[in-house]
């Protein structure tokens, strides 16, 4: 199951820390710990796949950031990004972490937040799509 932020159903999958977007938006800003519920069609040979961006303006303020990818509360990986721009993350998930009856909770936590100078609102990164792929 793969969630496109442009999908009309995307909001249903959001658990927390993803900004509500308008219908048709290709991406959404996140806060510090964006979490989504995503159903695994199978538990075997699945990878977590995430397409996201680190905005260069934000990056100039925060500097390198560390993202932690979690599946059902278990840390799948922790990666330090030293450049801004579009990123792709993909990594196999141990089958025993997943179930097919209910959605798994996928979270990404970012260590440093960007603070918008105009209004002081804090943002994490820009999420485009996230889900499980074979």
């Amino acid at each position, binding site marked *: 199951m793969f969630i496109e932020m442009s999908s009309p*159903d995307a909001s249903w999958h959001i658990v927390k820390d993803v900004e509500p977007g308008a219908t048709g938006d290709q991406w959404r800003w996140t806060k510090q710990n964006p979490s989504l519920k995503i*159903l695994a069609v199978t*538990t075997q040979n699945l990878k977590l796949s995430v397409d996201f961006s680190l905005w260069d303006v934000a990056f100039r303020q925060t500097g390198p950031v560390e993202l932690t990818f979690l599946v059902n509360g278990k840390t799948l990986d922790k990666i330090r990004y030293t450049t801004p721009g579009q990123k792709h993350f993909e990594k196999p998930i141990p*089958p025993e972490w997943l*179930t*097919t009856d209910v959605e798994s909770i996928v979270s990404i936590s970012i260590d440093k937040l960007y603070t918008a100078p105009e209004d002081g609102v804090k943002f994490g990164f820009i999420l485009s799509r996230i889900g499980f792929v074979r």
Partner: protein
Amino acid sequence: MRAVLAILFGASFTVVTAWSIGAILLRKLSLALYRVEERLFAFMLGSACLSAIIFALAALKLVRRGVLLALGILVIGYAFYSGAHRPKGHEFPALPRRWKWVFAAAFSFFTVLYFINALAPEVSPDGMAYHLGEVAKYARAHGFVRITTNLYGNLSQGIELLFLHAFLFGKHSAAALVHYSFLLCLAFLMLAYGRRIGHPGVGVAGAVFLYASPVVGIDGTIAYNDVAVAAIAFALFYLLQIWDQERGANLLVPIGILTGFAFATKYTAFVAVPYALGFIAWKQWRARQAVFRPVLATAALALVFIAPWLLKNWIWVDNPFSPFANRLFPNPYVHVSFEEDYRRMEQTYGLTSRWQIPWQVTVKGDILAGFFGPLFLLTPLALLALRQRAGRQLWLAALIFGLPFYANVGARFLIPAAPFVSLALALTFANVESLLLVLALAHAISCWPRVETRYCGSTAWRLYEIPYKAALRIEAEQAFISRRSVQYNETQLIERLVPSGERVFSFGQMTDAYSRHEILVSFQAAFNQVVTDILWTPIFNSFQPTRLLTFRFSPRQLRAVRVVQTERARDVQWGVSELRVLDGANEVPRLPGWRLRAHPNPWDVQMAFDNSPVTRWRSWQLAEPGMFIQVDFGQAQELDAVVVECSDEGYQTKIKLEGLDPQGKWASILNQPVETSRPTRVNLRRAASEELKARGIHYILVEKNDFRSEDFQVYAGLWGMKCIGEWNSAGWLYHIE
């Protein structure tokens, strides 16, 4: 206006036909009754007889408008021709003037309220679902149809058959008006009883106490049957009192008929049988007269009205008392677990303490679905009526007809006892007439809808408006029902979008009375519960076969093996998703010659041998020692392991393995399996949908409040379903592709 005329004709034609039959019968019996009693008992007895006649016609598939018209004209004509329509008895002494006014005032206000509500389109939950749902099916089929997927179809339906008579001419509202006619009859019977015992004020006050009660008002103006049961119970009581005074053998005929009709109307009214027979036996014994003959005569007559319902169930669903007594009469149509869960639920209704009951059934009415009015808080004072003979008789009947309330604490289950309590309460104040008068008026005022609003619970079940526009069909029937019932709108989705002849599965109760489709409601039959189990397996991990119990032993020749339950579970059933027999590393292929058995629930044993992870054999009752699942190979088979795949749900159960050796001797092989777990690796949603299709179900309706309803919405693709209709974000209709 034509619709209103049809409704009025349907209801009045049914009532007049019933009354005519009763009048003819009473004339033949030459009973010494007062005039008004003759009229009222004629309706009650005629209703019983007409219901029995329609039973016979329904069994012969002859329930057609022409047949009923001919029957009605014949009966009504004969009643007039023979003069049976003219009562022969004496008049009661005139009612005291002030009681006449009290009765007229209270009665007329509430009659307007009730009549208009009864005339309005039927919107009661159970009326739309099964009281009239089954009636609509019978009307289409011109008689009974074998119903195995809705246990309500197995209840006795004596009143529903009168509804059927009215329905054919005036549809749903005509049926509700027939029920209302029982409420009218009951009120007048109570009034007549008061006059007969020499306390007309008690009769008036008792009748007002009952007639104005909110739960009686709403129940009596919809297509339910509780008020009819109350009317039958009170008529039976009344006739027994007359018999006690006069001992006329002919009186046993209407007594026997009403005793049987009580059961034919509602199972819970079976208490009429021991009550009537016990009453007659006791009085005869006390008078040192023959006991056996009058009791036997009454019982035999009662049986004429009871037996057809028992036989119908026995023939069609293997259980004369279906949907109850399933342990005694095991059958594939209603699970024991359903019956036990149902009993448990009906005994509590979500009450936190039984001490809530008095306040609930008198004032609040929001948990126990209805209330009788604050006046009934004085019920303990009615015990003072025990000083009088009439009071003792009333209390005896109240206790007996109130017994079913212990099994179902819904307020309406007190309705059959309410006439007796009302009269006992009035009798208590018989000597303080002005107080009785004030109580009657105060009760009537306190039970008027606008006044009730000030004290009852906001969701209390009651009438709260006079929908005259809907009653007169100035407001379209569909629009009125649509405003009142979410389920009606969802049912209309089905009507619009599902092809004729297709069955639809629904987790919740729909409005079958307004549908031509067979709607399988998740809890209403064994088959439906199995379908629910299949649908829930993909979305509840605990239902999935993740637990493997392996019996491994030295290779041997066996003709049969059986897995036996050895534990008595507190609150779980036993289930087996798959039972596999191994020879070395290989599974022994299943052959057509294998004979499979299970106890209990032998009908589903195949589901433990179908290689489907979403189906399972279940005991459908709490696990207990002695339950087994068995496979007979038909010949000696070499094997060294048996694997039982089951879900986590069976954690309280324990099993052992037994084998039948080639010499035909059963012996224990292993008392304890080795347990391993195997997580589900694939999504089972589509597999579940395929199982539904295999069972002839291509459509399902999911409501917002159903468990995990959003799963169907979000993952329709994974289920292999397509949403083909939605109503107001409250219900979705899916087609299994």
